[in-house]
């Protein structure tokens, strides 16, 4: 018997409906007004559960203090760059946006401009603890519109780590504190001459290591080239990026000197994406690296339970501040980044989310977090707390650097500007480009990355 054509139609419709429900087209997200969803970055190293543990504790505390409310933790296990991508995709839709998101200051401005985040000023005005936060940290999550979009949960600083045993062999002082760039290079030359078989000085460079090259390497130099008050990368007054400055060329020349005179790691090693991991895991613990320009967080890799414990690091390594180019005031330079807690624009329960931030950032909880994470305090009361200062060797040194630290001009073009910096560094590192060529290459890339928002200085 023939099938009625009308019978075919419902079948097709049913199939389409099934497919639509499978792909979650239409229908609500099923968000519960009593549940706060918190997405955060889980370490790719299975041994490191610092943030998971901390958030687990806060969840218990929050649910106890607020009966009937629930916390759902959404861990995202990925390396930094992929975590950003994943989060941005989640923030694009109300169905997937969490109520609270862990945002790196590296990208927060970019996400603010995209309209992914909610301004927090109304909440912050009613939150007394906000006055305890230091001004530079408050600025880290401030948008170009002057509003604040995130609460920082600590910061980091950068300086010089040096190997005391190698210094002793080279006849250099154990309380070394260089005053100028030349002092740093001289120390490296002395090590090269007197202690064969070790790498004298490591400055991260090139695209493979990514932001580590820009921030731990280049910006630690560039921000020490001027008077320390204005930004050498971005001009606040004209809202433009700065091209081809003398300071930029001087910083490139420093990198060129390190690799040309073979004071640094072998170029092929330096341009290996896994190099930062090797520095922390092999070169420093094995006493094969004289001076390392690096971040305050290194010890978290050597703590109990990290898989490569090195409890005696504080006896073996010394710390020195990175000097300015010619020793001009303020004499030392540091860069700071760090992460913030932000509320997505499409969050279903923003009020509850901010309540969760308040619980997370009480003095006691903030202190617990800074210590667990080898982080640098951004609360004045914690920074002055003896328990925090004594918690780990090196904390005091790196916390003191906060007074002379700089934040990146993390505007929306920053990630591409950063890539252009890495390319210029790579050019002088391999010797493929002269400093002049690399600097003019940067200028070109800068114009392309910022839609010609460039000023000569």
């Amino acid at each position, binding site marked *: *018997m*023939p099938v009625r*054509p009308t019978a075919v139609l419902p079948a097709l419709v049913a199939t389409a409906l099934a497919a639509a429900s499978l792909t979650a087209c239409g229908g609500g997200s099923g968000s519960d007004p009593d549940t706060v969803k918190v997405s955060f970055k889980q370490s790719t190293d299975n041994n490191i559960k610092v943030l998971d543990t901390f958030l687990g504790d806060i969840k218990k505390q929050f649910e106890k203090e607020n009966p009937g409310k629930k916390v759902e933790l959404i861990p995202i296990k990925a390396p930094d760059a992929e975590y950003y991508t994943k989060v941005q995709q989640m923030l694009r839709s109300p169905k997937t946006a969490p109520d609270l998101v862990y945002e790196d200051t590296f990208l927060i401005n970019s996400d603010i*401009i995209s309209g992914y985040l909610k301004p927090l000023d109304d909440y912050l005005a009613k939150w007394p603890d906000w006055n305890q936060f230091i001004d530079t940290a408050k600025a880290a999550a401030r948008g170009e519109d002057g509003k604040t979009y995130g609460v920082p949960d600590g910061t980091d600083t950068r300086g010089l780590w040096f190997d005391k045993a190698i210094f002793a062999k080279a006849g250099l002082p154990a309380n070394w504190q260089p005053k100028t760039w030349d002092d740093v290079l001289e120390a490296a030359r002395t090590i090269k001459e007197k202690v064969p078989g070790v790498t004298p000085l490591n400055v991260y460079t*090139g695209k*493979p290591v990514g932001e580590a090259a820009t921030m731990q390497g280049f910006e630690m130099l560039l921000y020490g080239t001027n008077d320390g008050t204005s930004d050498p990368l971005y001009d606040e007054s004209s809202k433009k990026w700065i091209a081809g400055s003398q300071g930029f060329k001087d910083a490139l020349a420093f990198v060129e000197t390190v690799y040309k005179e073979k004071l640094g790691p072998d170029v092929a090693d330096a341009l290996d994406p896994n190099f930062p991991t090797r520095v922390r895991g092999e070169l420093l613990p094995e006493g094969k690296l004289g001076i390392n320009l690096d971040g305050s967080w290194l010890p978290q890799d050597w703590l109990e339970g990290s898989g490569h414990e090195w409890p005696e690091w504080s006896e073996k390594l010394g710390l020195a501040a990175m000097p300015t180019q010619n020793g001009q005031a303020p004499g030392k330079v540091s860069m700071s980044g760090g992460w913030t807690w932000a509320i997505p624009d499409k969050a279903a329960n923003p009020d509850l989310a901010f309540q969760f931030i308040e619980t997370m950032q009480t003095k006691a909880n903030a202190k617990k977090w800074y210590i667990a994470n080898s982080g640098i305090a951004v609360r004045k009361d914690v920074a002055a707390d003896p328990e925090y200062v004594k918690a780990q060797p090196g904390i005091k040194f790196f916390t003191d650097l906060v007074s002379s630290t700089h934040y990146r001009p993390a505007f929306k073009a920053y990630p591409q500007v950063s890539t252009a910096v890495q390319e210029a560094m790579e050019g002088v590192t391999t010797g493929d480009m002269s400093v002049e060529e690399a600097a003019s290459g940067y200028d070109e890339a800068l114009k392309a990355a910022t839609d010609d928002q460039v000023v000569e200085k």
Partner: protein
Amino acid sequence: MTAAAPHAGPETAKSPPGPPGSPPAPPGNQLRRTLTRALPVSPALVLLVLFLAGPIAYCAYIAFTDLQLTGQAESSFVGFENFRKAFQDEAFLNAVWLTLVFTVLSSLVGQNTLGLALAALMQRASKPVRTLVGGIVITAWVLPEVVAGFLLYAFFRREGTLNAILDWLHLPSQNWLFTLPILAVSFANVWRGTAFSMLVYSAALNEIPKEITEAAEVDGASGWRRMWHITLPMIRRSIGTNLMLNTLQTLSVFGLIWVMTRGGPGGKSQTLPLFMYEQAFQNSLIGYGTAVALLLLLVGSAFSLVYMRLLRTEV
């Protein structure tokens, strides 16, 4: 379900000739029958449209916008701007060049020739040798791409196996991943992908009737001449098929190169898939990255067209 189909042949444009004396089927029936027959495949069709054609169409649209993952609130239609940008971008042209080098070296020259050579040699080998060689080659192929990548990274790196062997032979060693990265990843791809060609060619060679090769042998044709005048022409179609599949696989290799070099140093091994990833996900320029993806599709189509011609030629 019994459809009132008077015949079971393929649907033709004309209404089918019924049995003699019966009136021709009205066109309404025709449509109904077509619909009825489409019914079993309709769920698959709907799913394909939703999950494959939909995203592809959306991608094609995105390539003409300035969509960014982050850094701007709105995206707008920009026409061919992304494509214009690509052809002025030295990094893109470099990626196109490297993609061609990588494809020609590792697919056309490497996997294809080596696969054919292995297949031809195994034809004459004893069974244990065949099993052993086949086993080794296929093992390399079934390894997950990332695992193969790490293995070859360990082989090529400065303190790696290759340099250890060279040192032992007192030959000069060097850091392959740094000096010749595109050659290193091409070799890696040959190592990993030859098995596929070998299997295709083994099957093709087994199809050649023995009498023909024997007759040529009696006529006194040497091995090379037999290969050139008999074997190759007879497996021409397999060569075309293999080249096409191989090229398309090679064009889209990502994981292997990513693990070994990340496209570095200095973009010296950054093929189009890696360039695309960098633009779309590291620089957040989704629109530009997608435009590059479309251009990669064009490169693939160009290769395919050439092989299609090759396939069509009759022996």
